[in-house]
């Protein structure tokens, strides 16, 4: 049997043993990385958003250095690209896309939704962003400009959405529960 005929489990086992034999990555290091990757998900980003909504100092840190803000909430960022955070305001709405591939802030949002990698999303996000997010039910007022963030290089980007009206007095956990994946990409906005 050649490697072309091997099933993926056999190939993976072969690759792992070669990585270990050549001292590139040990079994423990690979297990640790899998654990970190599986720990990423929209609930992590939602915790950051909720904290930023209730703590102005944390929000300032998050906008200045997203990775440090993530680490403060025990989200592992070691070895990952810098995390940039863009803030939605009444005057500007952000939408994140990676037109070149599928760059995505996995530590804080997990695996990207299937449509994030689609050619249609990537092409339309930069050319017809208002029409695109309208299909998620997001209608921007004319007074709100849209700024598309094309994630082309060494950063990963997430959106800090606006805190919706009707959430006054809510706890961080209650706030985090209403923040969805799409709110942190910019296709939707959180609702109370």
């Amino acid at each position, binding site marked *: 049997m050649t490697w072309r005929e091997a099933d993926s489990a056999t190939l993976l086992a072969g690759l792992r043993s070669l990585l270990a034999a050549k001292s590139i990555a040990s079994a423990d290091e690979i297990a640790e990385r899998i654990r970190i990757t599986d720990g990423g998900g929209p609930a992590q980003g939602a915790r950051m958003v909720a904290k930023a909504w209730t703590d102005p100092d944390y929000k300032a840190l998050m906008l200045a250095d997203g990775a440090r803000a993530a680490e403060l909430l025990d989200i592992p960022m070691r070895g990952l690209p810098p995390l*940039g955070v863009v803030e939605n305001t009444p005057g500007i709405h952000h939408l994140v896309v990676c*037109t070149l591939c599928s760059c995505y802030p996995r530590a804080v949002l997990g695996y990207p939704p299937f449509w994030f990698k689609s050619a249609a999303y990537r092409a339309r996000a*930069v*050319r017809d962003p208002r029409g695109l997010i309208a299909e998620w039910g997001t209608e921007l007022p004319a007074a709100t400009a849209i*700024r*598309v963030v*094309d994630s*082309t*290089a*060494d950063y990963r980007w997430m959106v800090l959405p606006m805190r919706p009206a009707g959430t006054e007095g809510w706890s961080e956990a209650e706030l985090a529960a209403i923040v969805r994946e799409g709110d942190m990409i910019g296709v939707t906005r959180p609702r109370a």
Partner: protein
Amino acid sequence: MLSAGTPVRVRLDWPETRGRCHIRTPHYVRGRPGEIVRHLGDFPNPEDLAFARPAKPVALYHVRFRQADLWPAADPWPHPAGDEILIELYEHWLEAA
């Protein structure tokens, strides 16, 4: 180092017509005018990294473009004056505008 507000133009260049390459500059901004928002740091040049060549750190900037400067006026979709695209671009793709 380019400071915030500096007007720039993306090099109108198509290295992919000259051979194998890896480029992080999307085609739709090449030759277009933009403005430096901020320096994001220096990173090994991905055009070399992709081929496992020694990669020198290159300044990476967030550059802002008006959507109306990127797409044809005849587009069926409106591009209101305030709408923008923000992109990470390496310094060697930027020219004085």
